[in-house]
């Protein structure tokens, strides 16, 4: 193989890899694979994480927070609740104080998060798409963020 052809193949490989890696930079909304949940619109999702009751089949849908990494948390604050971290923290504190509603559970361990999802079929969370693709116990409901 000529050096030029080898270089072209390498460049093509790098391009394909970059494209594939870029496609993985998505954050998706997921539920347990056995969950009856199908879709939640953006307003409903925001309501869930602000402590407003959103129901399906008469059951309140619970939002679990994935605090695995800072990028994911930043995307959650910008895309789902549309608040600064400080404002959201204060809003969460007012949930138990004003309404007697516990704050959404936080998980920084992916295994614990998946266990919590599987225990409650009416719970949802968000995660990187590649993490969701690697787990057979969950299903993706929708893409909530995609890298430009």
């Amino acid at each position: 193989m000529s050096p030029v052809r080898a270089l072209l193949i390498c460049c093509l490989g790098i391009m394909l890899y970059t494209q594939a890696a870029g496609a993985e930079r998505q954050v998706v909304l997921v539920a347990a694979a056995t969950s009856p949940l199908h879709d939640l619109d953006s307003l409903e999702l925001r309501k869930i994480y602000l402590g407003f009751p959103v129901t399906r089949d008469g059951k309140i849908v619970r939002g679990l927070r994935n605090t695995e990494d800072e990028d994911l948390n930043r995307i959650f604050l910008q895309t789902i609740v549309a608040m600064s971290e400080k404002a959201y923290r204060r809003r969460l504190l007012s949930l138990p104080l004003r309404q007697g509603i516990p704050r959404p559970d936080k998980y920084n361990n992916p295994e614990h998060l998946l266990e919590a999802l599987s225990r409650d079929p009416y719970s949802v969370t968000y995660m990187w798409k590649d993490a969701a693709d690697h787990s057979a116990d969950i299903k993706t409901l929708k893409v909530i963020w995609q890298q430009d």
Partner: protein
Amino acid sequence: MTTYTRYWIASTLALIALFNAPQARPEGQQDLLLFLSAGPSYHDVTPDDGPEDYEVALDADILYTYLNGRFRLLGEYIAAIDEAELERFQLGWQTGQESIGWLGRFHSPSRYWNSIYHHGQFLQTSITRPLIEQFEDDGGVLPTHSTGLLFETAHKLDGTADLRFAFSFGAAPVIDRTELKPFDLLDPGSSNRAAADMRFAYLPDQLEENQIGLVLSGSDLEVDGSHSAEQQGLRRVEQASIGVYLDWRWQDWRFLSSLAPVINRMKRQAHNQTDSFLSGYFQAEYELKYDWTLFGRLEQTNNTSSSDYLELFPHAVTDRQMLGLRFDLARQQALSFEVSRAKTPADGDFEQYLLQWSLVFP
């Protein structure tokens, strides 16, 4: 019940909740919060009225909540240098997506400030509260606690707007030796009469907190140990109040205001008499850069000298001009400083300086 016994009850409840660590469980969710606040205050009372007064405040507020399906439990216990009290204990049942009924002891829904901050001092920008929002044992002249039934509901209007309604009916406080004393679940008395409270709120965006509202309250306050009330031959006070409030955020500003006329029908042994006063406040807060917040409040009460009812509370702060600064540090702590020109019926005008450190955990 002695303060010592109360501390034991609070400590036991806190330990039970702590060892029942809040984990996601399909059968229910729970949460535990601790609000702490501490700091000195200096009251520059004029020499004619007494010595200069230094005080140190230290408050710990424990809040526990439990949610299981439609059932909710909320317990709040406060321990301070001079008091220990089961502030709230409520059992709730969600009757609809936006409706819930509560049974127990709660903060009266007609006091808007209390319904958003309760005892969460860290969440409250200012250190002090206005007169009409002040808790009974901190010099408040209006009932802020009730024990009975509370119903809260919301009705979605066109677009994003929301109309919220809260109504309560329960036991009113009594007029104790020096203050109003609400019904105590751990030490129930028998002389409490009835109180009814209502709050209507309009929110242009149901997911935001901006709102304007109307509050109504009616309380029958029995005299039970107040020496000055007994000297007046006073047996009880039928008190009615109707007020309006506003809580509005605009860019980096926040405005909190309320105005409430209060009518007191003084039921005496010899004759009955009616007096009234009007009390209101306007608080503005401005978020500066780097987690600093500048705030100030003007509050005023009129007819203070002609109100026999206010005479029962000679050390209540009826007027105040206040400026303050708050700095949020380490995410869940804050340092606040306030300087006020305040006035009470007994002490006249005086200056007040307060410094406070507050925290919420976790």
